[in-house]
């Protein structure tokens, strides 16, 4: 994956804005200045940052069903891949999408413009740029959607000739972290207008096709007339989804990179908690770390052929 040579550190960021979509999803925008801006200028899609949640207050209006889970004192940071990173004058803006599921995300969801947050990052290795001329197919599920969207958008920003296709899946419309979907608009005309094709799937059929996003992708690819050798896949989402994508990619002969999510404490390689078991070229079992060696891996490395 991308060679990481950017400096990372602990930086104070200001919240530039927050946007809530229903009870479950919020979009947060942070401003980094000075050394923080310099560090995040070098961040790339698929990398991540650790956001400090300790010390942040719980919002008074917790999502339904979260009360019992939310009243805990967190001590660890929470990792997030980026939805977007872009310059704002001398500063940098970092955006994330947050699925409000526990005490850490509930606290982040209560942030308002002007609040300060400690950010550790940028961390890890992100998506590798495609080989010249290759088309990129992004396939993502749930809260895995933001980093894939970031990757595709960045590729198209850097190279207007880049061809991209996007597939997004979630349990239901309310769980889909795409702003235009939450606002009842067509994402093809909004966030994904840079893509040649966008399709979605939900478990309950409340947005896009009913079913799995992997099935939507496979049936599209069968009729798209694309040569597997001309395509690359970039994926992020639940592990069973990534495994299915890896198997399809191996079968079709498409190179795929997958972004994994593991429980991690430090994010910088000292705690050794976020292991990804792999086999070395000599067939020896070894553990890579999701935080340092990933979170983006070549699918053949982490899912057997």
């Amino acid at each position, binding site marked *: 994956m991308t060679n990481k040579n950017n400096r990372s550190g602990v930086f104070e960021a200001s919240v530039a804005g927050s946007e809530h979509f229903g009870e479950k999803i919020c979009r947060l925008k942070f401003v980094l200045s000075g050394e923080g801006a310099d560090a995040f200028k070098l961040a790339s899609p698929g990398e991540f940052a650790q956001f400090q949640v300790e010390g942040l207050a719980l919002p008074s209006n917790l999502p339904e069903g979260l009360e019992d889970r939310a009243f805990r004192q967190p001590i660890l940071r929470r990792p997030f891949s980026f939805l977007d990173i872009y310059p704002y004058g001398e500063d940098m803006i970092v955006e994330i999408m947050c699925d409000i599921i526990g005490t850490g995300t509930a606290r982040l969801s209560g942030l308002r413009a002007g609040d300060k947050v400690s950010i550790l990052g940028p961390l890890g290795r992100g998506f590798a740029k495609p080989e010249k001329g290759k088309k990129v197919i992004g396939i993502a599920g749930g809260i895995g959607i933001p980093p894939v969207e970031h990757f595709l958008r960045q590729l198209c920003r850097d190279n207007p000739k880049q061809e991209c296709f996007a597939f997004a899946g979630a349990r239901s419309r309310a769980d889909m972290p795409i702003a235009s979907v939450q606002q009842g608009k067509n994402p093809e005309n909004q966030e994904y207008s840079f893509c040649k094709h966008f399709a979605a799937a939900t478990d309950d059929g409340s947005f896009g096709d009913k079913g799995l996003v992997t099935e939507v992708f496979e049936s599209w690819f069968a009729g798209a007339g694309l040569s597997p050798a001309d395509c690359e896949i970039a994926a992020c989402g639940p592990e069973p989804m990534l495994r299915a994508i890896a198997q399809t990619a191996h079968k079709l002969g498409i190179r795929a990179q997958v972004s994994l999510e*593991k429980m991690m404490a430090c994010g*910088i390689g000292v*705690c*050794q908690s976020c292991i990804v078991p792999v086999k070395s070229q000599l067939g020896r079992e070894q553990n890579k770390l999701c935080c340092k060696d990933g979170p983006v891996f070549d699918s053949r490395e982490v899912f057997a052929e």
Partner: protein
Amino acid sequence: MSIVNEKIEFAGLNLKNPVFTASGTCGYIDELDDYLDVNQLGGWITKSITLKPRLGNPAPRVVETNGGMLNAIGLANIGLEEFIAEKLPIIRQKNTAVFVNLAGQKIDEYVEVASRLSGQDGISGFELNISCPNVKQGGISFGTDPAQIKKITSEVKPACGGKPLMVKLTPSVTDISKTAEAAVLGGADALSLVNTFTAMVIDVHTRTPVLANRTGGLSGPAIKPMAVYLVSRVYQDVAKDAGIPIMGLGGIRNGLDAAEFMIAGASTVCIGTATFARPDAAVKVSDGLRRFCESEGIKKISELTGSLN
């Protein structure tokens, strides 16, 4: 320039200050190079080193709790040979004390690792890990039996080449004074306490333990008051009269926490879980401890040790 004298004499070593990073929470130190200048610390302690490389336990290996976290890493490490070849050259470039944490399945393994490292430059001393709750053989199985503690300490000590041997005690015993006394009788030059508390987190939906290892070691601010008590207990019952220094650890996150451990009887302190949330936490603790001394009019930081009224 601070007016506080931060220098500490600990197990025959002259340290810049009393703050260390704890084993298992600072890797082999190069991982922290971007975030922390280890030379600003009194010292640091390596991950546990075993004779052969260890993959450790399956994932999930960590889970957060209320004010703490559980880990069940299982002594994952690169093994002695790679440690010597790859890490020691980096470690030698640092200008601070380093203790190598020793682990093994049998006493012979501890002895072999210690003896092969004792002649190496760049190592200040050893910490005997007989208190890891996350491995079936070795680890805590040694650390709960006073007779075993005395035996392993007395057998490893001669392999240390005259370098200090610190014994890390588990809190998961009925009477920590007895295990501390056994380590002292076995020839320990220092004691470090406490290691993590054996604990469990259950997923109520699946009714299964969250950690693949089922149990793990609880650390973080949740354990601090218990750790302070145990340091005070061992200091009063064993260490003070024996003249054996204590390294205190368990949930320390700022200078006031560190001062509390020192007042309870610790000569040095160790920062563990706090490093996960803030990679330079140990330096912040050191700064905070200095500020505390300045505000209290304490001229020599070592005066804090055992100053409980």
